[in-house]
């Protein structure tokens, strides 16, 4: 690991989630804020000197839950804009009462529907915010009223998706790769274009597959259901398709590192795990994470089946992975979790405690396994 160790020590700043001291923030604070001089000659490492009024669009479901905690810990004022359908705050598994009380007492809520553009514009203009984290935006039209309401916005940080990349035989995807204007994620692309065209300091983050406790997308959950039920895992094709998962806490850290960072100004970053994984490998990693025996994997040709509207496998049936080198180099951050550790974290804090978002549905599995459905 000599080369990598040297690389890390010479280029990178350490950034464990629990200890985010905002080193990057204090560097940028020197260049931007004249007022720090009045606080004395010493450079404050803590971000308190840079406390921002931050608006998070969303923030109560998955990424935002971890991101908002990180921002509050750093001393920022954090407001979550949601319809209020999910609880504004919920104590996380493994989170102490004291930590939760600290967070929930500080985080603010702005109740509203972001599809109500007039409301968005007036309420945001009335409050004024320094920074917007847009975690749940899908279409460019949703973003325009926010920009209109906040002409002095310091930074608009957008959660886009690596799904915008045009499928390619040459991988991994880099931020400069061609994007697909016809993809399912074209709304994200259009949003990025809008941000580019407006005179705003924007940053766009493109995650690949996100996983971790409270994931509402059945990524690891899909495997855990089958492993728990002792069922074989049906994987399309040869199982050597390569994909990539990134832990939600590492994603939150990355979102934190772009805040006030001049290197992130008008830049796109792929954020995901440091390593990729084959479909078969992911099944094995999930088994390890949950303490299950080595899984039985059944390969099948998806073209031989008609599953109707149901999805037989949670990943797109192709190679799909992106390079995170730009973020590593420019932002100085590497993911803290490797795949098995991250899946173990997810299992221990979520599925392993008996919680999950979607009930197990083995309909397509049974079609593949050739079992007849018996109606009771």
């Amino acid at each position, binding site marked *: *690991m*000599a*080369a*990598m160790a*040297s*690389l890390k020590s*010479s*280029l990178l700043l350490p950034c464990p989630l629990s200890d985010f001291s905002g080193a990057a923030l204090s560097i940028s604070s020197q260049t931007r804020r004249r007022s720090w001089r009045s606080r004395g000659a010493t450079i404050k490492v803590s971000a308190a000197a840079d406390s921002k009024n931050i608006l998070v669009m969303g923030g109560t479901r998955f990424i935002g839950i971890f991101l908002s905690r990180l921002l509050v810990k750093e001393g920022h004022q954090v407001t979550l804009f949601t319809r209020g359908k999910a609880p504004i705050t919920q104590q996380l598994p493994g989170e102490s009462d004291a930590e939760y009380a600290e967070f929930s007492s500080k985080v603010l809520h702005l109740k509203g529907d972001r599809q109500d553009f007039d409301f968005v514009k007036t309420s945001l203009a009335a409050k004024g915010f320094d920074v917007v984290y847009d975690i749940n935006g899908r279409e460019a039209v949703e973003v325009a009223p926010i920009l209109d309401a906040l002409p002095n916005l310091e930074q608009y940080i957008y959660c886009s998706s690596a799904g915008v990349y045009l499928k*390619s*035989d*040459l*991988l*991994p995807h*880099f931020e400069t790769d061609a994007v697909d204007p016809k993809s399912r994620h074209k709304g994200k692309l259009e949003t990025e274009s809008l941000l580019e065209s407006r005179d705003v300091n924007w940053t766009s983050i493109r995650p690949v597959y996100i996983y971790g406790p409270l994931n509402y997308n059945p990524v690891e959950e899909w495997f855990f259901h089958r492993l728990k039920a002792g069922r074989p895992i049906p994987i399309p*094709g*040869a*199982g*050597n*398709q*390569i994909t990539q998962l990134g832990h939600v806490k590492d994603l939150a850290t990355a979102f934190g590192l772009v805040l006030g960072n001049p290197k992130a100004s008008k830049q796109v970053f792929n954020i995901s795990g440091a*390593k*990729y*994984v*084959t479909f*078969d*490998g*992911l099944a*094995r*990693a999930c088994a390890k994470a949950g303490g299950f025996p080595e899984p039985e*994997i059944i*390969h*099948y*040709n998806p073209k031989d089946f008609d599953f109707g509207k149901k999805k037989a496998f949670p990943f797109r049936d*192709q*190679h799909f992975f992106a*390079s995170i*080198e*730009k973020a590593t*180099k420019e932002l100085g951050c590497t993911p803290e979790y490797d*795949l098995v550790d991250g899946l173990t974290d997810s299992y221990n804090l979520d599925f392993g405690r008996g919680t999950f978002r979607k009930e197990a549905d083995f309909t397509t599995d049974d079609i593949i396994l050739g079992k007849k459905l018996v109606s009771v």
Partner: protein
Amino acid sequence: MAFSSTAAATAAAAFASGHRSAACRPSSKSSSSFLGASFPRVSAVRRCAASGAPARRAVAVTVRAQAASAGGKKSVLIVNTNGGGHAVIGFYFAKELLAAGHAVTVLTVGEEGSDKMKKTPFSRFSELTSAGAKTVWGDPADVGAVVSGASFDVVLDNNGKDLDAVKPVADWAKAAGVGQFLFVSSAGIYTTSDEPPHVEGDAVKESAGHVGVEKYIAGEFTNWASFRPQYMIGSGNNKDCEEWFFDSKNTNPPAKILANFQIPTRTNLRKKRNLAGIVRKRPVPIPGSGMQITNIAHVRDLASMLALAVESPGAAAGKIFNSVCDRAVTFNGLVKMCAAAAGIDAEIVHYDPAAVGVDAKKAFPFRNMVPPH
């Protein structure tokens, strides 16, 4: 990959990581493209050199060693294999060094008059000698005698695949006070992994010959480096994996493969470029789905990397480097790119080698697994 579970098991081997800066472009002599991830301390070393680096220069070993540590002109010995995919590496490395003004001797294994020397890159050695290189032939086990007692600052072993072959060269180099020992290893030594890409430091097959060599030279030299390439292409290549695509005997698959496929007869009018004025559609047989991934680098990029190690020995010392392109490519993608390069249309024909009775290893020039990247 054929849709069978046994095939899938072997296909799970990972590919090794190539950093973005090691771009798949012919690199210029001053190759700043490698001053990124692979050589993080290069700029630090250069700053030290500029400011005088007093601690290093004050250590008087010999006049030659001081000149070497300053990054001045070096005398380099390349012990080169006489065949196979790595043969061309020494050729390009020699060219890089010569262009930078270093003194180069190439020791090719075997005899100058052997039939092997009729193939490239050996048949192009005049390009080296006219630029000032010395070329000698002989047995690496006798390296001292073959080079007639000459001394060198740097030795690259681009020949041995195991310690039996490299040890005599390494031992001689150590005794002769050679300052830097470089070794061309192989990215094929990484153990199969579910999690590509392979990065330096990942587990390797302990029984692999190259692994034994890396361990040995790490113990013998302070200033050593090992380079792990995957597949190399480039003009002058001794083992032409890319040629396979252009050879009509390969691109007209035998009847038993074609039996179940219909080859369209209508030519693709969008592709106007053609060979000899005729647009041809060439069927190219690929075992399995064609989704298998490989990594192809241009040998010029590997040569640049080696040259950088010579010019910045401090940055390279004690390290292992994957020497690959920054992107992997699928077999399907490779065929399409070769076709585009040749200006012809390729029709990919997938087949299951087991079902057809073809040995997949011989049917296709790249390993049917996901290699290091």
